[in-house]
């Protein structure tokens, strides 16, 4: 716990004021408005609204496609996080061994981070194109084995892969930083204790990376729930047959595109609650296990 503080709280107020003002205007005010809409029927052109209580929520929870969207989001979150964190972790551990070419790999693995999501989406549309892309060869051998256009599972897999790809570099950076922060003497101590490289990874590095992994888990999961719009929009537009209808995409689609502001507002509220609960849960139950001091 910090013990040295400055006393002048007026200055503190002045310092936090800009950010609070901006988030009040651009975040809380609009969110409050959305919250209000969730309990009304809001005319798209702003002509007026009627208070309907929990009806919008009721409609949502009774809609099987809403639950489909929740499921899809959870699957997406789980697998894209697993995939990107898993891959980043393996690569970071490999890179951390600092064999020949380490610097080259480090740069090579970091810079995809800079590529914009729309560009990722476009590139992946290309690659996963069943008739023209890399996988079209597969289709020539086993026709129909890869069909993200009509096969929902394939489409979801494709979106997951692209979503994961986008995150690998970011996760890699954090894992590498985390690994390099592990004191060298611990590695040496375990080497003296008789542990080989792999054993060390398992017994020392992985456990000590847990705080980093936790941090990334929160970021990745939150991100996969809230920041997946771009990829879905460019790759599948939620289809086919709602197989990639992630919650945030559905909100945008129903609200902004379908002009159902109220229903979308209700969905936003649920999404926000869900993300908060997830974050809270992660903080409460996972963080406790991963911090050592």
């Amino acid at each position, binding site marked *: 716990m910090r013990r040295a503080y400055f006393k002048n709280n007026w200055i503190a107020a002045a310092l936090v004021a800009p950010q609070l003002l901006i988030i009040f205007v651009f975040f809380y005010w609009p969110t409050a408005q959305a919250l209000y809409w969730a309990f009304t029927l809001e005319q798209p052109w702003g002509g007026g609204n009627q208070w309907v209580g929990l009806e919008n929520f009721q409609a949502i929870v009774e809609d099987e496609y809403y639950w489909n969207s929740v499921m899809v989001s959870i699957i997406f979150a789980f697998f894209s996080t697993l995939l990107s964190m898993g891959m980043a972790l393996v690569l970071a551990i490999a890179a951390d061994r600092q064999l020949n070419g380490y610097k080259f790999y480090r740069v090579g693995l970091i810079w995809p981070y800079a590529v914009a999501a729309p560009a990722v989406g476009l590139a992946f549309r290309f690659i996963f194109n069943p008739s023209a892309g890399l996988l079209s060869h597969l289709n020539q051998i086993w026709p129909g084995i890869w069909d993200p256009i009509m096969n929902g599972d394939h489409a979801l897999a494709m979106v997951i892969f692209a979503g994961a790809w986008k995150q690998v570099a970011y996760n890699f950076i954090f894992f590498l930083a985390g690994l390099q922060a592990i004191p060298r003497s611990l590695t*040496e101590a375990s080497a*003296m204790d*008789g542990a080989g490289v792999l054993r060390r990874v398992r*017994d020392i590095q992985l456990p000590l990376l847990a705080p980093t992994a936790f941090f990334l888990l929160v970021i990745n999961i939150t991100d996969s729930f809230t920041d997946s719009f771009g990829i879905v929009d460019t790759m599948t537009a939620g289809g086919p047959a709602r197989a990639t209808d992630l919650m945030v995409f559905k909100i945008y689609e129903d609200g902004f595109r379908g002009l159902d502001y109220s229903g979308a507002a209700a969905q936003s509220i649920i999404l926000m609650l869900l993300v908060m609960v997830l974050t809270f849960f992660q903080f409460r139950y996972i963080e406790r296990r991963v911090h050592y001091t």
Partner: protein
Amino acid sequence: MADINIRRVEKSYGDTRVVHGVDLDIRDGEFVVILGPSGCGKSTLLRMIAGLEAISGGEIAIGGRVVNDLEPRQRGCAMVFQNYALYPHMSVAENIGYALKIAGIGKAERRARVQSVATAIGLEDYLDRRPGQLSGGQRQRVAMGRAMIREPKVFLFDEPLSNLDAKLRVQMRLEIRHLHQRLAATSVFVTHDQIEAMTLADRMVVMNQGNIEQVGAPSDVYDRPASTFVASFIGSPPMNLLPGRMTESGQHVELADGQHVPIPTALAQGRAGRPVTLGIRPEDIRHGPAAGGSGLTAKFDFLEELGMGRLFHGTLGGQDIIMHATDKTPPVFGTAVDIAFDPSRLHLFDVETGKRLAGESGRADKEQWSGYRATA
């Protein structure tokens, strides 16, 4: 069978050589302390023994087997690190038992051995704690326990006490000694603290800039430092070193201010009229007219009270000196006062090389001194 033989071992990082062809033989069961200032290559040497650092040249053998190319785990050494390097995510029991776990030793046996080690280091009540929940001394003991449990042939310590406060340091020192008495494993202990080195070592190795300056029993090194470097590195406060010149008669050294210090004649051989460095330890100086008569005088400025004696700070022959006095003579400051020392406690060094003058071998040296003492 765990003697360690170090032959012309060198270490270079890129172009800079930090260990220059070191030779050292450590006998089975011996407790050797490597002492030297920061950056002199102590840790590097130790880590080469451990296998944590590749050897750039020469050869290290443990128990007669050359280990240059062996991995750390194949060398049968255990090491205690300066910052302990405990695994923060494991409990004390897991930390201690980790090596056994890797060796594939069953749970029951592991528990039993961890238990017995924990008892030995007095941590039986802390087995379930994480290192973060322990005090410095307790962590240090865990680090020790972790090394002990493997019953290694060789114990390596890299300044394991330097993070502890003074009180704990004294206590841990004793524990390490007891440990060594019990296990009788060959031990190499690195430190830059000379008290630690003196109290722990069977034999001390004093290093300087990648070279060994002196090897010997602690009292030998203290009483007959092989060079001005060793003389000033060992002893706190350090030995007073005064530039002077051997008189033509060879019976005295003349200091910068013209005072004459009587020296044992044996030392003068062939050096009459030549410049020398005269060494005398603070505790070997005392107040009062010299027993021999022709008294020396020094001027003191202030004293530091140690409780157990006092340190007088002043000048002699234009040079700062310190006298450690245990008597309660009322101090006189600012004017010349008589001081005295037993000539048998004097040290002479070559001005240029810094090497100790007189008989080359320690043995000869000793005899010479005791001979002198007897006749004095």
